[in-house]
């Protein structure tokens, strides 16, 4: 059975980025790859938040939550027009 993937917004603590990374995109990608080989980053956010969004299984999301530098994970929310 293939675990269902959902989109998560991953909030990162940019100030804790290891110096081995030249930019935060690289760091985000590395964090994602540690939990998911097939992890597909949808967006990297730089201005209103620091972090990225990606499709993850629940297990992958749980694992990423404890990764250094991860502040929080928010599951995708659907908004509606008013």
């Amino acid at each position, binding site marked *: 059975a293939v675990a269902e993937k959902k989109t998560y917004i991953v909030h990162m603590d940019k100030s804790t980025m290891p110096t081995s990374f030249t930019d935060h995109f690289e760091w985000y990608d590395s964090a994602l790859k540690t939990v998911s080989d097939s992890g597909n980053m949808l967006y990297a956010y730089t201005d209103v938040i620091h972090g990225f969004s990606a499709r993850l299984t629940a297990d992958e999301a749980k694992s990423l939550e404890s990764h250094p530098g991860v502040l929080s994970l928010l599951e995708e929310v659907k908004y*509606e*027009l*008013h």
Partner: protein
Amino acid sequence: TTRTPQFLGLDASQSLFPDSTTASDVVVGVLDTGVWPESKSFDDAGLGPVPSSWKGECEAGNNFNTSHCNRKLIGARFFSKGYEGAFGPIVAKTESKSPRDDDGHGTHTSTTAAGSAVAEASLFGYAAGTARGMARHARVAAYKICWQGGCFSSDIVAAMDAAVKDGVNVLSMSIGGSVADYDRDSVAIGAFGAMTKGILVSCSAGNGGPSSMTLSNVAPWITTVGAGTLDREFPAYAMLGSGKNYSGVSLYSGKPFSDSSLVPLVYAANVSNSSYGNLCMTGSLIPAKVSGKIVVCDRGLNSRVQKGVVVKDAGGIGMILTNTDSYGEELVADTHLIPTVAVGQLTGDAIKKYILSDTKPTATITFAGTQLGVQPSPVVAAFSSRGPNPVTPDILKPDLIAPGVNILAGWTGAAGPTGLQEDTRRVSFNIVSGTSMSCPHVSGLAALVKGVHFDWSPAAVKSALMTTTYTTYKDGETIKDIATGRPSTPFDYGAGHVNPVAALDPGLVYDAGVDDYLGFLCALNYTSARIKTISQQDYTCESGKKYSLGDLNYPSFVVPLQTASGQGGGSSAATEVKYTRTLTNVGTPATYKASVSSKTRAVKITVEPESLTFSQTNEKKTFTVTFSASSMPSGTNEFARMEWSDGKHTVGSPIAISWT
């Protein structure tokens, strides 16, 4: 929009507003269903070059290319990765994978905020006039984040991120999701980031009214906008065989009934085998019992215009759409495909009573076009979401109300005015209702204020809009709530109805910056990690410092009080609460005096000092408001208003006191 510029006093006060050069430096970013660039409301005649600070783009895609942007529509982007992740790849046949608006909502909101003036606009002759956005010289940047399957938070944050980078000054977001803590709410988080860059974020309050605690987008750094009516209606009449004539509204534009032709009238519940037959749901009507008749359908569950299609498909020739108790007497006009009149609950009940009482009930429907000067206006729309604030009751929301009922503005060429697939009509302008429509009014008005006071913070602009609102009609009566017919309260209208001419010169503002909001989060006992999720900043609340939600420098006041336990809720034991606020002078030197108007004896409100003298611009003065309250039964709400006035300016703040 037509009429709202006159209703808001914009047309009569042109000289007070920024000239096209200053105003055109302001960019309004609209996150919505995209944009229909061919709309005349995006005509760029008379506009100078795109501001040099603008870094945005016009992204090409399905049915959209870079040449669709101009000096009015200076940016157009689309964000679909989150949506496609959930729904699979976008099918170009059904929706445009580009900034193009296939829905109409995004074109309506963006043209409301900042559309150019278009003469002789109307919807089938209804609401005719010159249509213009509130900030007609401002530039528009469209960020498409809503698709047929909805609007997804990962796309929304990506669009906000891009809009900030692009250089928008105001963000208009007529969307909402479920209620969540601020650090779990992507729009609140994105709005905080935008606010730190000096961008005002205006959001719709939601259409969950008239139930209480139905608000969305309630973070204090967001401007939350509820909806009110205009002084305009579209009257239509249901004439019954009994000779009685009932009024309602309609935007029907097809062939009307001849005046004298009374046709058989049935109530949907009586011509259906479905337990919800009264609602005219798809396939629920029995054609043999409906054919050639006018059908009375109750509002609710499916869309209002869909009910007309259901009646039409069953052979019905007309519809009387009746409100039930959820909607009261609020009338929303629609461009139905068959002759239709929408009536209030009282009228609906009377018509149903007639059907029951007559063996051969008959009716006809007539239409009377556009009526202006309707009073009282504005009234709070029944659908407009109401307070108290469901996340932080200590902050009054909505912040204010603006026109959101029967608003004419630009529309897509890809869908008919009803949005139904069966509707093959195409229109340049459409009339729709919702807090989606009131939000871009305030976004555009914020852009106008920003055009005059480019250096003002988002909080200062919001304060100007809030403290200059009005809450009464010319006769002194409080703005009514259409859901009840009674006077409304700050839980319905916030600070009041927007008054843009006064907002340009508010005299004083309640300013607030990032540190104020961080202190607010400390008062909520947020941890450093939660604060960082929202603010992207390392911030530690001072351990010895007493943070108070009531001390956020907000232009309104909420005093939540506990009912004294064991005192039967009726004790006179007084509770004293003190709030401190700081006013910044944005006008000329003046002395302001405080006054409080209150009808309640349960709370004594005093202001110290009672007078503030400002000798220079940007001077700040602090004052304290003390609320001495008796205990009242749980669930009691009392309201008051505080004003600072120098004789020329009035800086008003609503006060809500709640006992729980």
